[in-house]
């Protein structure tokens, strides 16, 4: 097991709730950054996907939130922390197909109840915690070195 390494890159990005026009822009920025850092394509793609789903969740359900990005030589860590309604039953929210999305959100092709499943399936480590009425915290890690087990 390797020792935790210092961040090569660290930043955070603001996400506005309810604004579907700009939804996805933070994910695009993060993808461009990771690509620029010459991380493996597979890592960039999975990081972009989990970031996108997290961003859409903030836009769909929260007042606002921040997405934190940390890159070390071993992993990419993405955290999405929002202020909003939170999730009462996480187990239910994790079920594929379950969604509390409004018709407006569903009409745009979001709210299919797949977002959290995608995040779980495409990250190497995923943790979700939530406080009803306060907000939700997602933490996702994508390993760069497949053998790395330090998380």
């Amino acid at each position: 097991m390797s020792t935790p390494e210092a961040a090569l890159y660290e930043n955070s990005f603001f996400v506005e709730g309810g604004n579907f026009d700009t939804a996805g822009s933070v994910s695009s920025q993060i993808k461009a950054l990771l690509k620029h850092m010459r991380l493996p394509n597979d890592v960039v793609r999975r990081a972009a996907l989990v970031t996108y789903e997290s961003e859409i969740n903030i836009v769909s359900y929260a007042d606002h939130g921040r997405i934190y990005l940390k890159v070390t030589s071993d992993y990419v860590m993405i955290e999405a922390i929002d202020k909003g309604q939170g999730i009462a039953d996480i187990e239910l929210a994790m079920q594929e197909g379950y969604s509390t999305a409004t018709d407006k959100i569903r009409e745009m092709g979001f709210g299919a109840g797949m977002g959290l499943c995608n995040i779980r399936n495409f990250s190497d480590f995923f943790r979700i915690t939530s406080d009803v009425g306060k907000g939700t915290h997602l933490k996702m890690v994508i390993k760069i070195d497949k053998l790395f087990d330090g998380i």
Partner: protein
Amino acid sequence: MATLGEIVAALDLKVRSGEDKMGTEVHGGYTGDLLSDVMAGSKEGDLWITRQTHQNIVAVASLKDHAGIILAGGAEPAADTLEKAKREGIPILVSNRSAFETAGMLFEMISSQKTGRSG
């Protein structure tokens, strides 16, 4: 494999953006209107067939490195979608056929021209 330009000609598509990308080689496609399904299931270089016309389709296509988007059923991109697609260099093509017919023709075309590539 076929180029975007060959697909545009064969399927009678209207090019709304990405005119300079007609030489892009297309190896596969994906059909879907649920964005999370497209995020999970589509692959880099796919041509994505959808009925969604709002600007988030550009973000999805860009994040997934799609070759382009075909709007099926004659759907036209919203004005801000088109603007964003032009800015990000994502080809948007309009098909007057249904998603079913469009996908069938695209599949036929790509698989018949496939040379030694599976999947």
